[in-house]
């Protein structure tokens, strides 16, 4: 029986080591393949005893150059080579970090969904409150986004086009926030529909058990619409609705401003006036017209005084 090697004390490989190992393996493979191809090629020419041709020499040179580049790349990935090791370690590390955070967020959302499913079952038996859980889901979504993902859109941009990149990132960020706010608003608006439907179901069951359903189905509709109207009247004055409405309006205006900034950037490169250009013009026109009317009034008054 062979002893199994204990792996307890071995450290888990980090991202840069994994990347290095992979790159070494890949270059070794392609180098070996290139070597094999070269030998096959040489063998083929030897066997045919073809005269030496410039094509063969160039092809040989091309293979040699390719294998040399691969050898160079492999040597650069050695631990003692410091030329690219720093950058090579950072990139995989960042990717791993991003993947880790996304994975953790996904797990957290899955846990919330599982919890919701559990409470839904409890609600069906009337043992737990239901109405606030969906609201928490939006709060959770927003929290996860703002805590874990939003910062990637706010990374400082570099280079000549940094301003444009930053505007695009801002637009993407605002778009995500707007989507969440819209989802939450629609969810809040749909709540009275759910409640009134539940209430009608209970009422219908009661009627069936009691005096029976009304002969005219219009009466049932009338009851439902009145109940729905009452639910909306309660909701539309509630602080919850006001908060959701104001959040939606804020996110909507932020998104439009971010979108307009994109349009502004694009329109800089075509001979078309932008909204800002036109607004400046409108303001000047407005002030000019006002001034002209004031002067007309003063002139009229002076004429009347003189006459």
């Amino acid at each position, binding site marked *: 029986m062979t002893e199994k090697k204990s792996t307890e004390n071995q450290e888990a490989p980090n991202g840069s080591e994994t990347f290095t190992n992979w790159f070494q393996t890949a270059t070794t493979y392609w180098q070996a393949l290139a070597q094999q191809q070269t030998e096959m090629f040489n063998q083929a020419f030897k066997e045919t005893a073809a005269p030496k041709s410039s094509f063969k020499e160039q092809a040989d040179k091309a293979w040699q150059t390719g294998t040399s580049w691969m050898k160079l790349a492999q040597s650069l990935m050695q631990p003692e080579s410091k030329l690219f090791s720093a950058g090579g370690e950072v990139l995989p590390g960042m990717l791993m970090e991003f993947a880790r955070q996304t994975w953790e967020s996904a797990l957290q959302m899955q846990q919330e969904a599982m919890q919701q499913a559990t409470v839904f079952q409890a609600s069906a038996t009337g043992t737990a409150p239901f109405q606030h859980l969906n609201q928490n889901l939006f709060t959770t979504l927003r929290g996860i986004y703002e805590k874990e993902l939003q910062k990637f859109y706010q990374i400082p941009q570099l280079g000549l086009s940094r301003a444009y990149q930053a505007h695009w990132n801002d637009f993407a960020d605002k778009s995500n926030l707007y989507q969440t706010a819209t989802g939450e608003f629609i969810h809040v608006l749909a709540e009275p529909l759910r409640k009134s439907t539940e209430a009608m179901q209970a009422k219908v069951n009661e009627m069936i*058990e009691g005096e*029976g359903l009304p*002969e005219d189905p219009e009466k049932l509709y009338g009851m439902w*619409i009145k109940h729905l109207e009452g639910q909306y009247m309660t909701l*539309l004055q509630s602080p919850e609705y*006001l908060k959701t409405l104001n959040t939606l309006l804020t996110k909507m*205006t932020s998104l439009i401003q971010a979108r307009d900034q994109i349009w502004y950037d694009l329109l800089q490169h075509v001979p078309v006036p932008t909204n800002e250009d036109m607004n400046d013009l409108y*303001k000047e026109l407005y002030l000019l017209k006002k001034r002209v009317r004031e002067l007309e009034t003063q002139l009229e008054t002076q004429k009347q005084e003189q006459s």
Partner: protein
Amino acid sequence: MSNPKLDVELILKRLDEERLKSQERVRKGSEVLLGTLDTTIASTPFETVYEEDRIRLKYYRPEKIKASTPLLVVYALINRETMLDLQPERSVVRSFLESGQEVYMIDWGYPSAKDRYLTIGDHVNGYIDRCVETVRRRHQIDKINLMGICMGGSFCVMYAALHPTKIQNLVTTVTPTNFDTDAGLLHIWTRDMDVDALVDTYGNIPGDIMNTGFLLLNPARLMIDKYRGFWSNMDNKAFVENFVRMEKWIFDSPAVPGETFRQFIKDCYQNNLLIRSKLELDGHRVDLKNITMPLLNIFAKFDHLVPPPACDQLTREVGSQDVEDVCLETGHIGIYVSSRFQKLFTPKIVSWLAQRELSEQPEEATPPQPSATKP
């Protein structure tokens, strides 16, 4: 559990009856919808006597002029003044004309982007004042009668306070003047609204946003029940025509000039300056005590947009002693579009104005003089 008392046969019978009715209704409804429908609105003839920028002043002349003082009607900036002339049998304008009242009406038009910097002062001391001057010039009179509707009424209150010497009688209908109330959803919603963000983003507030906001005031009735009612009556040609006219009007929402919207929300809805006589327009304070002419204030008991508490304080705050409140048991636009309430509404205004005709005005009304249509 006891056996449910459910007459399945009866339910199935009812469903079948409903199915047959629906089929017949759809068949007739298709004929109606695919046939000729008269859905014209604002068909009463008028003459445009003044135009400036996007606005025009319309003049409606009665067959026989009985009232000596013309009436200038100022509608709100929200929706269109065509509501007063939706159809011939239910037209406030025609009612006035039939009683011999000359009517001028401001058509605010459709604001464009260049109108975004117009303030309330530009509307009140600018456009309304120039319309008043046009009417005065045409009739060669010192004072005219002024009537305002909803936000237009708020503008008329401001105008009458700033230019009391030009107004003989003031009529306000469903006019918000007190905004410190929770009786209306608009008052609650606008309290914490970031109006600066909206105006800075949009410039003019789009009509679609206004429409969406009004629909959300009562989604059950305005988005579900209303169309169910249409479905139930789509085989009735007259009903369909009236319904379409109302739809045409209600979704015909011009944009609201940005700075006007900003000022109206901040100074009125959020700070309630108007009823406290603290509102300022173009550097001049709007003091309600300057309203010394007779005031008729009409409002609606079931108005969900401008509830009674938003209207009924005005008569207590003005300087005039000749004031009257009239509360009609209807909704915000029921006064104008309900045939039942039109029979109360316009005769009341006409008789109230007739009682307050200036004695020094000529007994026989003078037809207006033609005037230039451009400033």
